[in-house]
């Protein structure tokens, strides 16, 4: 029996009258890449913010690595790394400076932070540009720095919120390879994306969220099988079937 590393139990979150997340529950196994898919405004980011201790749920709880986000958020923060959708970097500084700074904030000392930063930059193919200013980097390089920052410290669980949005195929491929390498080393990952082929390639299971609720949760293959022959149906077809084709803001 596989061990659940993250368990989300009946999460609710409202902003004024708007229910952003309405009873979300799921669990993620250790070493699994779990996809959270949904149209804009479906509740993905709010869910990730609650899982990563930034937002407190109105009700429900989240257990990460055996610790409750509600009652022991500090312990949870020791276990997680977050790669937000925005390029949350200090672009006036070098890639190395960014990584070292966030490493220090994650509890590393100066020496450890520098060693880890160089190692992560090498992993993401950026070692040669370690001392270059981030604002001079291409979009793809910035995305890779964004991912590298989330690896600082000793995270065992990664939240990757659309880490490949708007980048070139080379950078995207580098990020895929990095994520797969991390998974092979035992990292547990929650992954959100709008690229369905990404979810199909990387995720062991995906949950589709809409209107603050999870409307489907299974392996990509099983989800595809539910609406037709899996070799003829894409995850995008499943997504559109379940969430509708109307445009979302």
């Amino acid at each position, binding site marked *: 029996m596989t061990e659940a590393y993250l368990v989300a139990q009946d999460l609710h*979150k409202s*902003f004024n009258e708007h229910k952003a997340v309405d009873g979300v529950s799921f669990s993620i196994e250790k070493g699994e890449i779990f996809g959270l898919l949904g149209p804009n405004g479906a509740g993905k980011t709010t869910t990730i*913010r609650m899982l*990563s*201790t*930034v*937002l*407190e749920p109105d009700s429900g709880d989240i257990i990460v690595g055996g610790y409750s986000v509600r009652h022991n958020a*500090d312990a949870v*923060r*020791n276990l*997680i*790394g*977050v790669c*937000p*959708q*925005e*390029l*949350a*970097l*200090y672009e*006036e*500084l070098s890639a190395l*400076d960014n990584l070292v*700074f*966030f490493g*220090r*904030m*994650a*509890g590393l000392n100066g020496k450890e932070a520098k060693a880890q930063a160089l190692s992560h930059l090498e992993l993401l193919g950026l070692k040669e540009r370690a001392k270059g200013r981030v604002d001079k980097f291409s979009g793809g390089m910035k995305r890779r720095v964004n991912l590298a*920052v989330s690896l600082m*410290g000793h995270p065992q669980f990664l*939240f990757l919120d659309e880490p490949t949005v708007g980048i070139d195929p080379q950078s995207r491929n580098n990020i895929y390879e990095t994520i797969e390498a991390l998974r092979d080393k035992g990292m547990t990952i929650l992954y959100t994306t709008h690229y369905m082929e990404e979810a199909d390639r990387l995720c062991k299971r995906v949950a589709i969220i809409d209107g603050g609720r999870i409307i489907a949760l299974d392996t990509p293959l099983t989800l595809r099988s539910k609406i037709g022959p899996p070799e003829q149906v894409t995850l995008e077809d499943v997504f559109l079937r379940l969430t509708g084709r109307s445009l979302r803001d």
Partner: protein
Amino acid sequence: MATNSHGGKVLDKLAKPLLIALLQVRIYLKDRADLAFSFLLPIAIFALTYGAFGGETSFNGTAHIVNEEEGGLYSALLLDRLGEVDNLDVDLLSASKAESKLDRVDLLMVVFIPSDFSERLEAGEPAKLVFKQRGNGGDEGQIVASIVGGVANRMAQELQVRNEVAEAVADTGISQSDMENTVQQLLENERESPSVTVEEEIVGVSPDIVNDLMPGILVMFVLFAITLTARALVEERKRGTLERLLTTQLSIGQLFVGKFLVNFSRGLIQALVLILLAYAVFQMFTPLAFVESLVIVIAFVAAVSSLGLIIGSIARSEDQSIWIAVFFTMATVILGGTFFEIPESGILSVLSKLSINSYAIDAFETIISDGDSLSDIGIQLGVMTGVAVIGLFIGRSLFRVMPGGR
């Protein structure tokens, strides 16, 4: 061991806010636009103001003169003597040009030397200068008239002395040239080493423009940092770095203290440059007054940083933060007496008590101009420190990385 462990934890808790401050100061020092705004602009404005109004503690003016006497000995002598007066320029005009300028109000006072000026003096008759003026001739005109009158009177007195000496020695066999040389020598000695001299001694507030302007300009530019502080906080919230920091082992309290230290450091660097400039270039301070001014700067910068954090905490967009900060800054600058002296009673006086600037400017003036000590500005320091502390509590309670979140 327990103490060491506790001490280590405290140090660790302090280290992260300091690292945040250090990082942001590095960014600040790399941002040339921010640096220019913080340092060069106040220096440039101060230099311009100083160039326009400063550096002069005595009168400077021009005597506009029409000499209607062609080749007259004493009119030429008068013009020479006026040319020797410090800080007075002589502008010779034709009669028609002078009249025209008086008509157009280009000039308020012109001295006319009449055509019989030398002739009358040589004949021992009273000569007169004519001061043509519009109204009272203006402040400069009155001062110039007084100077010209004084020089003319002295010249007339010298001539009278010469005439009386000549009369006294007329039958003694002393030659006219010997007498002229001796009298000339005596009068020149008297001019070079007058028996009565005047020494200026400044009591109380120095009339130096530097002393008058520097506190206001320094305080105003440190206060402008409120806008940068508020905007930076909103900008960081927008680009997601604050949210990302909250997913590390950094507590929200440490993050807030870090942000306070960032703004405090930036404001302090900016203020330090200005007071070092005042100290090194304008010699405004004694070494003790310099140290005391540093204490004022620290209290004021702390207060300003707290206020900036409050604005940054309540603003939901960069535009909002800028407008709130600009409105607050302008109101505080105007009410603080930066540009004009606040009367000691009345509504403005009451309102000025609500401006943190008034306490800072008051404290600087007490130290720099009045030469008093820190014990004389206890109230001002207390108010500034109080604003800093209360501002921090209010800012912290309003501070959210995102709506509905931590």
